């Protein structure tokens, strides 16, 4: 019988996870050269365009080792960006071991550390792999030293490879079969499987990705979802081999999918345990801890008639992205919508793009906010993540905002730049130490609100891509907060309001007014844009009106050309939101999210 190994690749972003996954898939002969394309597990367009992995993906690789033993190797690809560490932890719950991939030129980075700790917490076997050894800037000895000092691992156990050049792939596959333990669990115990992912198929209902811990499941079995007791008849089970490959059964230790005609989207919960109706398990598996969103923003349909459609889309989307939380919301300017919680700003952008591309929604997103606490004079404490519910300033006794402890790893030449950045972002309690010569580990307490926008981008650009960053929430701290309102054509656009630290309010207001001036197209009348705190205007810009917009000639009899231009403009207009008399394009709401352009 085939043996099973469940493993995942974890790494800092850009250290080559997807490329290594590509090579492993090719080595296993799952695709021939002709069908192959890079980033093969990244099925979403958005992943390919951005060159990142957002979703964990699963694939079963058949492999026969040098001793002639046959294996099914279940590879669970994981995202690398700090926003998606939740996806990583879910993937890890289905594994017995991980490949810890480290770039031979960049060495150990902040996410390498964070991912390693997550793996260690789950008692997984770690196989360090040094990738990109073909690079001229590769410094294998230095990276080995970092593996010893930063990670506390035995650098002798590290494997060397170049995923790009296909060097060292077989050694990795051998190490997986030798070092990673086979999954525990008993075929005879009652069936238990952990749901670690799901997505909705309009024809087949929910397709559940799961890891079986005990027992087995076949088509025709009656399964029960333990959190709510819902039961369904299994239609099909199988493995993922780039496409779904049906099997007779899924049994202990295996990773695969279950299709059971689940049309009620909300029945499937990531982290839930599946068991059998006839012989149920006494207790559910240890799930994952609930993720806590840290960034909040509302989503509105561009056309209010599309509210229901957006609601359906979100429900289905949520199946595939358990980290998104949402509830109903409404705005004077934008109508009915949803307040959503995200893991970070990249997550927010991904949600927006996926809702548009995969679910055909035209949406507007409001300015993101963190969760603030207000202690009111009457002794009550309110938690607010939506500027709309900002309490009356007269009633506020004190306010608090969430702080994070940031860990930043940079080459020491950039130390000055990064310390400036942190100071500018109201960073406190700096600490630094030099883990290896030439590299600094910098720790700062920073307000989360200052980090969610573009801190990571800034860090990257200030360090020419060499800086890395990870953070954990530490505490709420007292802060002098005000609500900044944005008025477009003298009308307050509640969707653009935000809460900011008083010292940063004016700079932020000026920035937003300038941004909006560039983003809102000129219209038939002059449009003032103002930033205000309470009744006081603190920033202002003006969009001038069209003085003239008419073509002198109608191109002889070529009316088609003229009309097509109008049709294009009309289409563009449909992607704008009417706020009062002003058309605001979706891009304007997004542009406000980004801070400096430089």
């Amino acid at each position: 019988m085939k043996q099973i190994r469940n493993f995942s690749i974890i790494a800092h972003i850009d250290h080559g996870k997807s490329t290594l996954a590509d090579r492993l898939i090719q080595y296993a002969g799952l695709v021939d050269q002709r069908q192959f394309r890079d980033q093969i597990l990244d099925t979403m367009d958005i992943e390919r365009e951005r060159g990142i992995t957002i979703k964990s993906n699963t694939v079963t690789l058949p492999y026969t080792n040098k001793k002639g033993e046959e294996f099914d190797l279940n590879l669970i690809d994981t995202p690398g960006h700090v926003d998606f560490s939740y996806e990583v932890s879910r993937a890890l719950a289905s594994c017995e071991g991980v490949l810890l991939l480290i770039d031979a030129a960049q060495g150990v980075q902040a996410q390498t550390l964070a991912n390693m700790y997550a793996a260690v917490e789950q008692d997984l076997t770690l196989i360090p792999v040094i990738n990109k050894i073909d690079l001229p800037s590769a410094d294998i000895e230095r990276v080995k030293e970092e593996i010893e000092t930063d990670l506390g691992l035995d650098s002798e156990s590290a494997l060397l490879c170049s995923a790009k050049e296909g060097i060292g792939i077989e050694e990795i596959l051998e190490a997986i079969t030798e070092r990673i333990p086979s999954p525990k669990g008993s075929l005879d115990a009652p069936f238990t499987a952990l749901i670690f992912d799901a997505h909705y198929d309009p024809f087949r209902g929910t397709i559940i990705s799961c890891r079986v811990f005990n027992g087995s499941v076949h088509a025709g079995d009656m399964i029960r979802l333990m959190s709510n007791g819902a039961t369904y008849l299994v239609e099909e089970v199988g493995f993922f081999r780039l496409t779904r490959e049906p099997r007779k059964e899924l049994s202990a230790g295996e990773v695969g999918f279950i299709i059971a005609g689940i049309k009620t989207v909300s029945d499937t919960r990531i982290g839930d345990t599946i068991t059998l109706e006839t012989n149920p398990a006494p207790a559910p598996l240890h799930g994952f801890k609930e993720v806590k969103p840290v960034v909040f923003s509302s989503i509105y349909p561009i056309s209010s008639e599309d509210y229901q459609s957006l609601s359906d889309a979100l429900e289905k989307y949520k199946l595939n992205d358990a980290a998104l939380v949402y509830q109903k919301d409404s705005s004077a300017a934008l109508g009915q919508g949803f307040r959503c919680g995200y893991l970070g700003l990249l997550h927010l952008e991904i949600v927006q793009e996926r809702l548009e591309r995969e679910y055909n929604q035209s949406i507007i997103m409001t300015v993101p906010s963190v969760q603030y606490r207000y202690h009111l004079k009457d002794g009550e404490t309110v938690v607010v993540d939506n500027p709309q519910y900002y309490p009356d300033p007269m009633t506020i006794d004190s306010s608090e905002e969430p702080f994070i402890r940031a860990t930043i790893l940079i080459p020491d030449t950039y130390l000055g730049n990064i310390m400036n950045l942190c100071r500018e972002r109201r960073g406190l309690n700096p600490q630094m130490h030099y883990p290896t010569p030439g590299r600094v580990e910098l720790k700062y307490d920073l307000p989360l609100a200052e980090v969610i926008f573009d801190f990571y981008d800034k860090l990257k650009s200030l360090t020419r891509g060499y800086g890395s960053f990870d953070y954990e929430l530490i505490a709420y701290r007292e802060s002098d907060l005000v609500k900044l309102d944005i008025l477009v054509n003298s009308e307050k656009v509640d969707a653009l309001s935000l809460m900011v630290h008083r010292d940063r309010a004016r700079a932020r207001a000026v920035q937003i007014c300038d941004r909006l001036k560039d983003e809102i197209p000129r219209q038939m009348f002059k449009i003032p844009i103002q930033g205000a705190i309470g009744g006081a205007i603190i920033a202002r810009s003006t969009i001038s009106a069209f003085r003239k917009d008419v073509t002198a000639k109608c191109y002889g009899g070529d009316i088609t050309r003229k009309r097509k231009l109008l049709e294009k403009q009309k289409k563009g207009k449909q992607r704008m939101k009417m706020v009062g008399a002003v058309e605001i394009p979706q891009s304007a709401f997004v542009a406000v999210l980004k801070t400096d352009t430089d």
Partner: protein
Amino acid sequence: MINDSCAGLYLHVPFCLSKCPYCDFYSHTDLSLIPQWIAALEKEVDLYKGRFSSFDTLYLGGGSPSRLSEDQIETLVEMIQSRFHFDSCSEITIEANPNDLNPAKLKKFRELDINRISLGVQSFDEKELLFLKRRHTVTDAEKTINWIREAGFKNIGIDLVYSLPGQAREQWLDNLNKALAFQPEHLSCYQLTIARGTLFWGMKKMGRLQPISEVDEEGFFLTTSKFLEDHGYIHYEISNFAREETYFSKHNQKYWQRRPYLGLGPSAHSFQGNRRWWNVRSVKKYCQALEEGRSPIEGQEELTEEQVRLEMISLGLRTRAGLDLSCLGEKQEMKKMLPRLVENGWMSISDNHLIPTLKGFLVADRLPLFFD
């Protein structure tokens, strides 16, 4: 055959001695292709035999139709008049460049029943003519206009272009005064548009041509309208003025009023029923197709109800006659913006018509976006 009693016929003569740097109409500078083109045109004419019941306008445009020899023009006009039926009081226009004309040629035009000349003067200022790379002088233009009058033409249109880089308001008014001295029945005043594919477009991209500001364009436009209306002209379309309603360009109005028209020659556009179609934009491909017995049509479209409405709105709002409110259909949605459009002074409603104001003319390309 569809009974369209008042169709227009446009003949595109796609030849010029040289390309003007602002013009984006299709033309070719190899005049040796003319005989081949005339032969092909005859074949195209045959394709439409019986497709239009009758015409009341013929428009020889281009390109430079006046560049053709007297014989060639005679061949063309007779070819068309023998194959198609024209009303007795048809408007027959030829576009002409000042230095292409002479008294003998004009006499020929009269014999061929051509009764309207649209003269591409463009400017009465030598420096401006040089900038526009026109091949005539101010004196050429003035002399030609006198010849046209002497030949007995009762309907002259003069084309001018304004809002030139660096042009002063007085300079432009001087141009208009010089034109008015000839009491033209019709004036087309086009603000300079820098179109893709022209020499000016390239110069602008390279920073060698600085278009005037939008505020100045607005000023020029308003000044022009006021000046000509004060001198008794009717501003009946964005860029067109006429001394009396009878001198409105009957042919061009067909485009704006969505009447049927047949366009012959390379790049010409046609419209009949709900169908629009257009020919290839290449003399060579045009000739080749017809020589091989194929149609020179490059594309066509069947308009949806919504497209028809959009055209009615966008074209109607370019003219002083405006838009019949019934064109907007029954849906209240279409009319919800009307009060705002009137309130802002872009249009007025009278006699069940939506009439663009002068201020409305200035933003006529945006007005259709308010209806949906």
